[in-house]
């Protein structure tokens, strides 16, 4: 019975895959709307010179706003799950006395400041070349994970008010700028930046998003890793 079910799933997935490939091959080439050219034609009004950033934060800013909300919701889901189990806060740096850990400690202490620098660079570079808030936030989060794994940063338990504020600050900045722009520059239109100040507004939004996304992505690891740390302590 189980095998039959497996075969059925495999056959159906293969059929779906073939149909999708067929549809892609059959669909007429999109001759009328050429998005790359459209974007390049309008890029002067976007406030940035990198087309990907122009699309993500100006032309399709609404999508990015919702994406950040989805990430925040994912973290809220993790926090809601955590609330059920009570754990005490594990002390940081309890297994750092071992000689072999010195390499990891040293590496973390050298790498983390560099990672913060790289995150800042990626944030700034987003305006004119590949980079941006999501990548910068991910690098910040990776720095947090490295600190946690090397025992320099304890896992997070109940988030205090300052952590909560950091988690939502990016979304709040985004929403505030969206509301301010909607009320002053372009009434009734969401996220239609005036071209003169678009570059500065995008940089503001991206700075807030970098901080928040770094905390959110790091939180996904740091709120969950409490058990792993306990595990290390047992050895």
């Amino acid at each position, binding site marked *: 019975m189980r095998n039959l079910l497996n075969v059925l799933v495999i056959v159906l997935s293969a059929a779906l895959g073939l149909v999708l490939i067929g549809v892609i091959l059959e669909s007429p080439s999109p001759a009328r709307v050429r998005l790359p050219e459209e974007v390049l034609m309008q890029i002067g009004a976007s406030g940035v010179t990198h087309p*990907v950033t122009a699309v993500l934060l100006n032309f399709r800013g609404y999508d990015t706003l919702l994406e950040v909300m989805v990430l925040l919701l994912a973290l809220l889901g993790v926090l809601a799950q955590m609330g059920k189990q009570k754990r005490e806060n594990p002390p940081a740096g309890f297994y750092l006395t071992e000689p072999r850990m010195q390499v990891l400690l040293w590496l973390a202490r050298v790498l983390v400041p560099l990672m913060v620098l790289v995150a800042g660079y*990626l944030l700034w570079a987003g305006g004119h070349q*590949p*980079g*941006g808030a*999501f*990548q910068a936030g*991910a*690098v910040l*989060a*990776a720095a947090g*994970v490295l600190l946690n*794994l090397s025992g320099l940063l304890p896992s997070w338990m109940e988030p205090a008010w300052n952590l909560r504020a950091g988690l939502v600050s990016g979304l709040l900045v985004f929403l505030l700028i969206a509301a301010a722009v909607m009320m002053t520059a372009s009434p009734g239109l969401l996220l239609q930046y005036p071209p003169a100040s678009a570059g500065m507004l995008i940089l503001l939004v991206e700075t807030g998003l970098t901080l928040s996304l770094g905390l959110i*992505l790091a939180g*996904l*690891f740091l709120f*969950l*890793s409490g*058990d*792993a740390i306990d*595990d290390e302590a047992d050895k």
Partner: protein
Amino acid sequence: MSSLILDLLLVIALLWSALRSLMTRDLFRAVVLFIVFGLLMALVWARLHAPDIALAEAAIGAGLTGALLLDTVGYLRKKQQESFP
């Protein structure tokens, strides 16, 4: 010519790591292969002239997801040791 060989090697390595990650029975090995897959995928995005996606794939797809999955494997192993000492 050399770029074609590089692309072919990338495609083969990508498919191989994906298949092995799905087929292997050891969870830890599957996660490591998944991280390898993510890094190869980042290279493929770079070859497809999509450096933005390559950056995101390397940082989020391979790095953070890999760390989370490794954490989960450690948690599962601990649970297993508790139930079958």
